[in-house]
C-alpha cells in the first residue's frame, strides 16, 4: 500500500472515531467539539475573512522574522567559525541563550518595542537566530580539509577560498539551519501572538478561547499544524534532500 493511501485511511479513521465519540457523547461538546462543528467554525472564519487576515498577518511577521534570523544567524555563525576568540566568548553566550525558549523574552520585548508588531517579530527573530548561528558555525568548521587543500593547489586562498569553496561546501548545514530556524520561529510566533494583540492566528486562538469557542480553538490549531507541515515538507525538506544528494551526503 502506498504511504499516501495509508495516511488517508489513518486520518479518516481518526476523524470518524472523533465524530462518533461526539455523537454518542463519550465526551461533552464544550470539552471537545465534534469535527463537524470545527469544520463549521473554520468555514465561517474563512467566509468572514478573519482567518485570512490572520494568516496574512502571521505570515508577514514570520517572513520578516525568519529572513532577519537567517541573515543575523549566518553573519554571527561565520564570525564564530572564523574567530577563535569570538567562539570562546560570544559562542558560549549563544549556546546559553539557545536553551532559553525565545518567548520568555516577550516581557522585555514589550518594554522595548511596545505591545505590537515589534515585540512579536523580535521574539520570532530570537527563536530562529540561535539555531541558525550554531548550524552555520558547525558547517564552516566541518568543511572537508581535502577541499581546502585541493583549492589551495589550484591557486585559491584567503577571501577567494572562503567565498568560492568554504561557503558552498557548508551549504548543507546552512539549509538544515534554515529549516530548524523556520520550525523554531513558527513556534515562537504562535506563542508571541497568543500573548499579544491581533490580528494573527495565535491572537484569534486566544480570542476564541476567551469566548469559550472551543471549535474555533481546534480549528486554528489545525491550521497551525497543517501550515507547519506543508511548509516543512514542500519547501524545506525538498530543498534539503536535493542539496544533500547533490553534495553527495545521501544516496
Amino acid at each position, binding site marked *: 500500500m502506498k504511504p499516501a493511501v495509508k495516511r488517508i485511511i489513518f486520518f479518516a479513521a481518526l476523524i470518524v472515531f472523533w465524530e462518533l465519540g461526539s455523537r454518542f457523547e463519550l465526551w461533552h461538546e464544550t470539552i471537545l467539539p465534534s469535527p463537524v462543528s470545527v469544520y463549521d467554525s473554520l468555514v465561517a472564519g474563512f467566509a468572514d475573512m478573519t482567518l485570512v487576515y490572520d494568516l496574512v498577518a502571521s505570515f508577514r511577521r514570520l517572513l520578516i522574522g525568519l529572513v532577519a534570523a537567517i541573515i543575523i544567524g549566518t553573519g554571527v555563525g561565520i564570525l564564530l567559525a572564523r574567530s577563535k576568540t569570538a567562539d570562546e566568548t560570544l559562542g558560549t553566550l549563544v549556546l546559553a541563550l539557545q536553551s532559553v525558549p525565545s518567548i520568555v523574552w516577550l516581557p522585555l520585548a514589550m518594554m522595548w518595542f511596545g505591545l505590537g508588531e515589534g515585540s512579536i517579530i523580535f521574539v520570532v527573530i530570537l527563536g530562529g537566530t540561535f539555531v541558525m548561528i550554531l548550524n552555520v558555525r558547525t558547517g564552516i568548521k566541518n568543511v572537508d580539509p*581535502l*577541499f581546502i*587543500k*585541493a*583549492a*589551495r*593547489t*589550484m*591557486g*585559491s*586562498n584567503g577571501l577567494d577560498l572562503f567565498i*568560492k*569553496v568554504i561557503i*558552498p*561546501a557548508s*551549504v548543507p548545514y546552512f539549509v538544515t539551519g534554515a529549516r530548524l530556524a523556520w520550525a523554531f520561529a513558527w513556534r515562537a510566533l504562535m506563542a508571541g501572538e497568543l500573548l499579544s494583540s491581533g490580528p494573527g492566528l495565535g491572537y484569534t486562538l486566544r480570542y476564541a478561547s476567551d469566548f469559550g469557542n472551543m471549535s474555533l480553538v481546534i480549528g486554528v490549531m489545525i491550521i497551525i499544524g497543517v501550515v507547519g507541515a506543508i511548509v516543512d515538507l514542500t519547501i524545506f525538506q525538498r530543498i534539503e534532500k536535493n542539496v544533500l*544528494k*547533490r*553534495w*553527495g551526503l545521501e544516496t
Partner: protein
Amino acid sequence: MFIEAKQINKVYFDKNNKPNTVLKDIDLSIQKGEFVSILGPSGCGKSTLLSMIAGLVSSTSGEIIVDGKKVVKPGKDRGMVFQQAALFPWMNVTENVMFPLRKELSKKEGLARALHFLKMVQLSNYPSHYPHELSGGMQQRVSIARSLAMDPAVLLMDEPFGALDEQTRSRLHGQLEEIWIDTKKTIVFVTHSISESIKLSDRIIVMGTRPGTILTDITVDIPRPREQHRQEIAALEEQIMALLKTEIDKVIDEEQAYEAGS
C-alpha cells in the same frame, strides 16, 4: 635540475611533545619531463614529501626548489591529484575543471580549455554531470583533467588510483601513460605498489620508514609499452624486493591489501 629537494627534514611533535622524525636528510633531484615514482610502506613520509613539493606542508629544515624557485606556498605551477578526487560537489564536471582557470582566462577560453582536457581523459560526453553521478574512476579522471588544465610544470599524484578497483586502475594506468607521453609533463607519483611504480615510471625512489629516508634510486629502462615485457618487470620486481629486505614485509602487507582493493 628541475625539482630539487635539499637536506629535507621533518619532525612532528606528538601529543606528549615527543619528537617524531618523519623525514630525515632527504636529497632528491628530478629532471624535466621525468616520470618518477616514490615507493614505500605507509609511514615512510612519501605523501608528506609530495605535500612539501606542493607547498601544503612545510619542512623543519632544508628546502625544495621547483624550476628555479623556492617552494614556500602552493601554486598553479604544481598540480596535485589526491587519492580522493576532491571534486567540488556543487559544480558540474566542466565547472570543476574550469575552477583553477577562472582568474586568468575568459569564460569562453576556460571552457575551451576544460573541454580539451576532458577529451584527453575521455570524458567529453559528461560535461554537465555532477560528481555524485560519476563512478570513482571517472571522478579521478576529472580530477586529473582539472590539474592538467592549469598547465602545471609538474603533476604531483598522491596514490591517485589507490581507492579504485583493479580493472579501473589498470585502464587509468594506460591513460596516464598516454597523457604523460602527449603532454611531456614532469610527474611525481606516490604509491606503495611495486608493480604500479614499475609499470609507469622512469625512476623509482624507494623509501624506508621510521625515519623516512631514501633507500635507493632505481632507473627503469624497460621499453614502453611495458605490458609486453613481463619478464623484465618480474625481474625488476624481485630486484626491488631483494633491495628492501628490512622494509619488505611492510610493503608486501600493504601490497596485498592494495591488490585486494581495500
